[in-house]
């Protein structure tokens, strides 16, 4: 009996050590990501047809120097792009990982479940049919994302949802919306069609100041909320029955998590268009860094910002012709998606 009386203490010690290791890793990874994002942010401000040093950029940002021409380039021209990249990336990264954990499927990214395509359809309709631009397009995109979510909810979420069914309905809804986008485009004049197609590719550079401001007001509320709800996510992942057995209010949690994630995605899409794959890959990359099944929302958000800032630098500075950001994220994300499809299929765990 003495032997078994001692052993729980050692087991507790092991658990304590494991937990400490994990929190240290989480702190190191998250701060490392934050540093990387800041570096990319500064780099975005340095690069362009008129190159600046890091000192000049930081000095201008912190208002330590007074050089009107540098201030104009940094704050006037490049800051909106850098802020957009970070904000949209944070929103997509956080929302993506919430979706994936809640639906227990790495394919359950907002890109695939009808939300982005709902936004795309509404925005294209606004551009083509109403000859709208700027804020109206973004407003339509926001409404479209919410309508897409509602469509998904009515079709799939009603009875509580799991795995494949949701993904399949999402792909169906997306295909339906994409088909309608194609139809709307055939009705368009060439100028509007080009504008619409550009919007659909998604680009950090296309953000207008008003949409961006809305996102910037929303992020300080929604990101902490998503991080707070992570506690619920951890039990929701175990299945509805288990979560309810543990005393979680599953319907309420699901509604809160989905609403937070959907609004994040909708606002991000309204700002920069449907930039693909960022929401899909941010969560899995964060999990790789943090350790399996940790699901850090903050880390995923930072990975999203990192990806988007890096993609935008590649799209606008590295490539010979500047391209929309969505082209680069697509080129990076597509191979990942293939790999995901192959490996989940092999393990037979796709659902």
């Amino acid at each position: 009996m003495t032997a078994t009386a001692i052993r729980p203490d050692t087991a507790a010690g092991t658990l304590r050590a494991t937990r400490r290791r994990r929190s240290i890793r989480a702190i190191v990874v998250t701060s490392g990501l934050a540093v990387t994002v800041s570096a990319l942010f500064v780099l975005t401000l340095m690069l362009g047809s008129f190159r600046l040093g890091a000192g000049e950029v930081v000095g201008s940002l912190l208002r330590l120097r007074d050089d009107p021409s540098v201030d104009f380039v940094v704050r006037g021209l490049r800051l909106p792009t850098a802020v957009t990249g970070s904000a949209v990336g944070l929103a997509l990264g956080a929302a993506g990982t919430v979706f994936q954990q809640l639906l227990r499927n790495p394919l359950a990214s907002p890109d695939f479940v009808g939300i982005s395509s709902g936004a795309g359809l509404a925005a294209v309709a606004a551009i083509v049919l109403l000859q709208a631009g700027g804020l109206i397009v973004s407003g339509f995109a926001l409404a479209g994302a919410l309508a897409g979510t509602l469509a998904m909810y009515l079709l799939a979420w009603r009875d509580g949802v799991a795995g494949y069914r949701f993904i399949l309905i999402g792909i169906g809804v997306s295909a339906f919306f994409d088909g309608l986008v194609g139809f709307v485009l055939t009705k368009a004049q060439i100028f509007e069609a080009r504008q619409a197609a550009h919007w659909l590719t998604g680009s950090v550079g296309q953000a207008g100041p008003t949409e961006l401001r809305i996102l910037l007001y929303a992020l300080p509320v929604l990101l902490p909320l998503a991080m707070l709800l992570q506690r619920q996510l951890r039990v929701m992942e175990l299945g509805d029955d288990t979560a309810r057995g543990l005393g979680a209010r599953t319907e309420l949690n699901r509604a809160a998590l989905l609403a937070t994630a959907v609004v994040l995605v909708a606002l991000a899409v309204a700002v920069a268009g449907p930039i693909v794959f960022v929401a899909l890959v941010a969560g899995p990359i964060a999990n790789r860094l943090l350790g399996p099944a940790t699901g850090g929302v903050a880390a995923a958000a930072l990975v999203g910002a990192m990806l988007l800032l890096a993609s935008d630098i590649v799209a606008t500075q590295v490539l010979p012709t500047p391209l929309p950001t969505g082209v680069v994220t697509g080129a990076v994300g597509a191979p990942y998606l293939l790999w995901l499809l192959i490996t989940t299929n092999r393990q037979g765990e796709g659902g």
Partner: protein
Amino acid sequence: MTRLRAEGLTLGYDGPAIVQDLDVAVLDGKVTAIVGANACGKSTLLRGLARLLKPRSGAVSLDGGDISAMSTLDVAKVLGLLPQAPLAPDGITVADLVSRGRYPHQGWFRRWTEGDHAAAARALQATGTAELADRRVRELSGGQRQRVWVAMVLAQETDLLLLDEPTTHLDINHQVELLRLLRTLNAESGKTIVVVLHDLNLACRFVDHVIAMADGRIVAEGAPADVVTAELVEKVFGLGCVVVPDPIAGTPMIVPT
């Protein structure tokens, strides 16, 4: 005295009622098995007792209060549930999974405490899974995995424990191992355990009290030696058999004819 009881309980999903007007009193400090043929409503009854299913009529009471009117978190501190198909997130470790059983004892901002560590450690220890703490749940055998899930519910530290067919998909060795574990938990900490079982022989061998169900109703209940007869097996499972004493334990053993 019984802490968990149902009165006039009628349960169902979308269609007709599956469980009709049942009265159940769960014996404190005992191991009870709910047995019956497939689709007789035994899992439904368990879900009803665990407040996962709202009664169409009647009520479930816990410690004298209506369970559906109580805060679900408060219930979770007294009553633990292992459902039929719990889901382990991809790549999760045993320690992480078991720790999630502490959910009802933690608040939105409360940090992980020594008490939480100790409870999770006791749960690992009691189920013999402490050595597996750093392993991934997916890599484990079926029997080990089921013990890890039991540990998760034990970490919840509840006096009552409901388990929905925990032996399904396990081979006979691991079925026996799991039931022995439940017996030990009951003996050492006086936990009240209700377990849904398919196998009547195993139920007779390992539990104190049997509730036999057929077509959503309770056909018989009592100590296995008192209620398990050839007539009952015929009535519940539609199987002709003789009942003989188990050569080891002397409990009723069903031998098909």
